[in-house]
């Protein structure tokens, strides 16, 4: 049975990971309050929006992401891989709760939704938890996640700067001077969000990957005003089209997944033709940067595992730490044969924009920062075990690449750093024998209290 957004809220509740805020909250304050809670937040009452509730920070920790994925925190990458390996096609159904209420034409009014203002330098209120569905006559359906900035009751900006399949679809539509119909589902299970953040090959349906993660098909309903399908159990759906104006409308800044305020960008516009939602809708506010980061973790960790296997290195554990935004840093432990510490580094540094990779032996618990420091202290000689690869592809939002100096359209490069914290070749493992306490198993502290 496929889990939905509300089943995930129930799972959070059951695990003591959901805080209910019963007092009325102004949409101006949703994000600031969610940021102060240790748990995920469910806002039971929104000032000026009596029919709505709102939820945020649902997967702001690795623990809650693992809860969504039904696995241990260490297994999120392999769990994600299983979804990729075993896709299940989505299934069309006749109707669904996402269309219990329908607003078309001029009645489709974005101000009827409690879209929050999240950060002090944002260009406007943002819809951050989007599952955007589009279709190309040749390539078929695509699902991705793109932030949307409120502009007018029928219009938003959309960040379509980075390369993506939907950017390609939009460019192809633009070349023919026609709009690109899209549908935006908000309030879906994290599996759908994970699948949307995965850069699947263009002929792979991300919703089939979501189905593989669920172990059951994602059920879809046909949209009312565009020839697209959306998850039937979504809380809210915006239908409409990307206008054929190219990258000409100001959008941003926005608090980016790098934990840094971004720049004003030039992007297309989304014109709304229809809004549908549940009778008692919950607006899902993806809390930046934590939720965005953690939703990237299984994807980047799975890519790291794959790269290691292609390099014939046997991985034991892998971690994309939040300090690297679950995107720029990978730490892995391996069952090492001579030379494989370096091979593993080369493999990990080939993954997307990873710019720092650390490799340890399998006796190191890479989830323990102290263990990792210990390995880097005693198993690393900087003149032998540190790799620097200059001139690799970088990403604009990393300030250290100085993208602002490149001029319009310039692409940044970055240096990549690898640290081989495995036991050096020629050093016997016995040199690392840990201290053990005499009679450790013969006495118990509680017997002496």
């Amino acid at each position, binding site marked *: 049975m496929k889990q939905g957004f509300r089943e995930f809220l129930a799972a959070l509740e059951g695990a003591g990971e959901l805080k209910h805020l019963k007092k009325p909250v102004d949409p101006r304050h949703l994000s600031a309050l969610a940021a102060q809670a240790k748990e995920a937040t469910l806002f039971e009452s929104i000032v000026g929006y009596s029919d709505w509730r709102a939820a945020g920070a649902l997967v702001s920790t690795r623990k809650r992401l693992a809860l969504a994925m039904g696995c241990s925190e260490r297994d999120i990458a392999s769990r994600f891989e299983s979804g990729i390996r075993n896709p299940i096609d989505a299934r069309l159904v006749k109707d669904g709760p996402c269309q219990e209420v329908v607003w078309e034409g001029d009645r489709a009014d974005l101000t009827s939704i409690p879209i929050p*203002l999240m950060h*002090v330098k944002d260009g406007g209120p943002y819809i951050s938890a989007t599952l955007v569905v589009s279709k190309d006559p040749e390539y078929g359906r695509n699902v991705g996640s793109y932030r949307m900035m*409120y502009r007018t*009751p029928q219009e938003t900006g959309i960040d379509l700067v980075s390369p993506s399949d939907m950017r390609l679809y939009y460019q192809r539509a633009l070349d023919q001077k026609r709009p690109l119909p899209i549908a935006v589902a908000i309030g879906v299970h994290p599996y759908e969000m994970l699948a949307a953040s995965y850069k699947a090959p263009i002929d792979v349906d991300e919703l089939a990957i979501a189905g593989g993660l669920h172990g059951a098909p994602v059920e879809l309903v046909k949209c009312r005003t565009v020839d697209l399908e959306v998850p039937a159990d979504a809380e809210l759906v915006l239908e409409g089209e990307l206008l054929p104006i190219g990258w000409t409308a100001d959008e941003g800044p926005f608090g980016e997944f790098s934990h840094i305020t971004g720049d004003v960008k030039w992007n297309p516009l989304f014109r709304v033709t229809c809004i549908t939602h549940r009778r008692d809708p919950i607006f899902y506010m993806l809390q930046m940067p934590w939720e965005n980061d953690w939703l990237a973790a299984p994807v980047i960790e799975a890519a790291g595992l794959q790269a290691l296997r292609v390099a014939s290195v046997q991985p034991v554990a892998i971690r994309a730490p939040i300090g690297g935004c679950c995107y720029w840093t990978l730490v892995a432990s391996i069952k090492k044969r001579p030379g494989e510490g370096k091979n593993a580094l080369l493999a990990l540094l080939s993954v997307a924009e990873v710019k720092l990779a650390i490799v340890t032996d399998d006796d190191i618990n890479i989830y323990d920062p102290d263990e990792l420091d210990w390995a880097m202290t005693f198993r690393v000689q900087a003149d032998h075990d540190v790799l620097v690869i200059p001139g690799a592809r970088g990403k604009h939002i990393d300030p250290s690449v100085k993208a602002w100096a490149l001029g319009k359209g310039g692409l940044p490069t970055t240096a990549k750093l690898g640290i081989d914290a495995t036991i050096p070749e020629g050093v016997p493992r016995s040199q690392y024998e840990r201290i053990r306490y005499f009679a450790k198993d013969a006495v118990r502290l509680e017997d002496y209290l």
Partner: protein
Amino acid sequence: MSPLAARIVEELRATPRHFAEVVEVHPDVAWRDLLKAWGEVRAAGVLGREDDGRYRIGQ
């Protein structure tokens, strides 16, 4: 243009502001009314942007 939208235009004409600063000037306005007024300002095509993201009147 509504009185609130016209006020926002005059405020931005006097001082470029981030959207959050526009919001802070009108703490007692209902969120939906503020969004509607902002939509009117947007639709009027009078907004420009500073390099740091602040809105101004004029391109």
